[in-house]
């Protein structure tokens, strides 16, 4: 699985650095599809990219080079000043405690939670927090369970209704074509009459 990810990200990086490679094939494709062929939308000399419609240019290769140069410069400054100071490995800062468990690591669900909250009108997450406590006092908690279920908005609002419509169509179609030769002959007859009436 990782090999696939690495390959894909490699392609992304390569394209980001040299998008000019794809510029020409894309151009031909758009010409074919749109039928518009009034000059190339992108011109390139290998390093710079220029849009022809408006004045806009870019050079990903030079940007990447610039970034690398700046990083090396920053590293040089840091390295020079670190001559007398060694790097020391140390446990992550835990507010004075030493024990860090896996439960204290940030989770993907949590990472997405703020965005989910922001768009809760769209996503409609269903959240349940069950708290078990002693019968005598609710302040003695025994267990807490959290459940989160987010229904896919696209699935529920678009795909499922579309599927339902398609199914209704299908059901209707099934009633129309039930395998009877007589009925098909009747359809043909009616169609013929309609065609004749229209073409008259």
């Amino acid at each position, binding site marked *: 699985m990782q090999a696939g990810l690495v390959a894909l990200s490699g392609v992304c990086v390569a394209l980001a650095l040299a998008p000019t490679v794809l510029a020409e094939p894309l151009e031909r494709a758009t010409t074919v599809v749109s039928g518009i062929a009034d000059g190339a939308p992108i011109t390139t000399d290998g390093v710079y990219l220029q849009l022809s419609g408006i004045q806009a*240019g870019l050079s990903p290769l030079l940007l990447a080079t610039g*970034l690398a140069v*700046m990083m090396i410069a920053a590293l040089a400054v*840091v390295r020079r000043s670190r001559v*007398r*100071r060694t790097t020391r490995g140390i446990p992550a800062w835990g507010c004075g405690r030493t024990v860090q468990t896996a439960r204290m*690591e940030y989770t993907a669900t949590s990472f997405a*939670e703020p965005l989910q909250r922001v768009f809760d009108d769209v996503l409609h997450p269903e959240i349940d927090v069950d708290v078990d406590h002693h019968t005598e006092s609710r302040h003695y908690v025994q267990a807490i369970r959290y459940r989160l279920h987010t229904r896919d908005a696209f699935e529920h609002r678009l795909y499922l209704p579309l599927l339902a419509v398609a199914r209704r169509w299908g059901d209707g179609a099934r009633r129309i074509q039930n395998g009877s030769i007589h009925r098909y002959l009747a359809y043909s007859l009616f169609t013929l009459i309609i065609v004749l009436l229209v073409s008259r």
Partner: protein
Amino acid sequence: MSVSGIAVALLQVALTIAVAPVLVGLMRKIRARLEGRIGPPISQPWRDLRKLLGKQRLVSANTGWVFSLAPLVLIASAALVAAIVPFLSTRSALDQVGDLFAVVYLLLLGTVFLSLAGLDAGTAFGGMGASRAMTITAIAEPTVLVAIFALSVSSGSSNLGAIVSSTLANPSTAASPQSLLAFAALAVVTIAETGRLPVDNPSAHLELTMIHEAMILEYSGPDLALLELAAHLRLVVFLGLLANLFVPWGIATTVQPLHLLGAAAAVLVKITVLAAIIAVVEVFIAKLRLFRVPELLAASFVLAFLAVTVSFFLA
């Protein structure tokens, strides 16, 4: 790409690095004065950086290469943007290297790496900061794109040099509705992305409320110096971008040293005024509840969207 153009670009980087910490010092000074305090000297951030460079570098266990790389990426991206953005002259060598979109995404690259670094140490605070930063960025991004689009439409280009030249040629566009709306939208995004009030509080130190600082809690010594400097740089770059995109007057259209000197003075004045306004306003406002921040950003998106609409009608 001319030699003089490269010289201008390098000059911009050097100037930004020299000015950024002082500007932050000035903002702290203004806040202190309004609070009735004397406050640290304006050069204090420089002193802090110098000391940090001489300190031990601690590397937290369980961190990987992202932890070491992030400060470099953050400072390099900010410095590169400082080279591209027309602070001094419209004839910067790098103008054709990156347009406004490229600049915004370079800054975003820094944000992303900082968030990754926050996650890398595997601590709760780092992850929390990263999640908050990404939430804010995710909502701020559309605003940036739409606002840039509005500017590009009215000037016929997404290249910074061209936008600035266009405004210089037609001064009335600076006061046009689309320009003002786009300015307002980008200003809100600037506040959010540089971690100022009311989005993040640069002067409070409470683990559970921090956004920017939560991600850099694990850093020390030279790494921290880079991160702090990068944060200062990003502030100056954002402010410089705002200043010269919307009020470009004073910028040189040549690369003559005398013109550049004048341009440097002009851009410094503009940035200082903007920074002072932010510092003063920050005293009067409080930090928004975390889930009110998206509302603020949504408002900025509406402004940006209006800017685009208006620019099409007035084009």
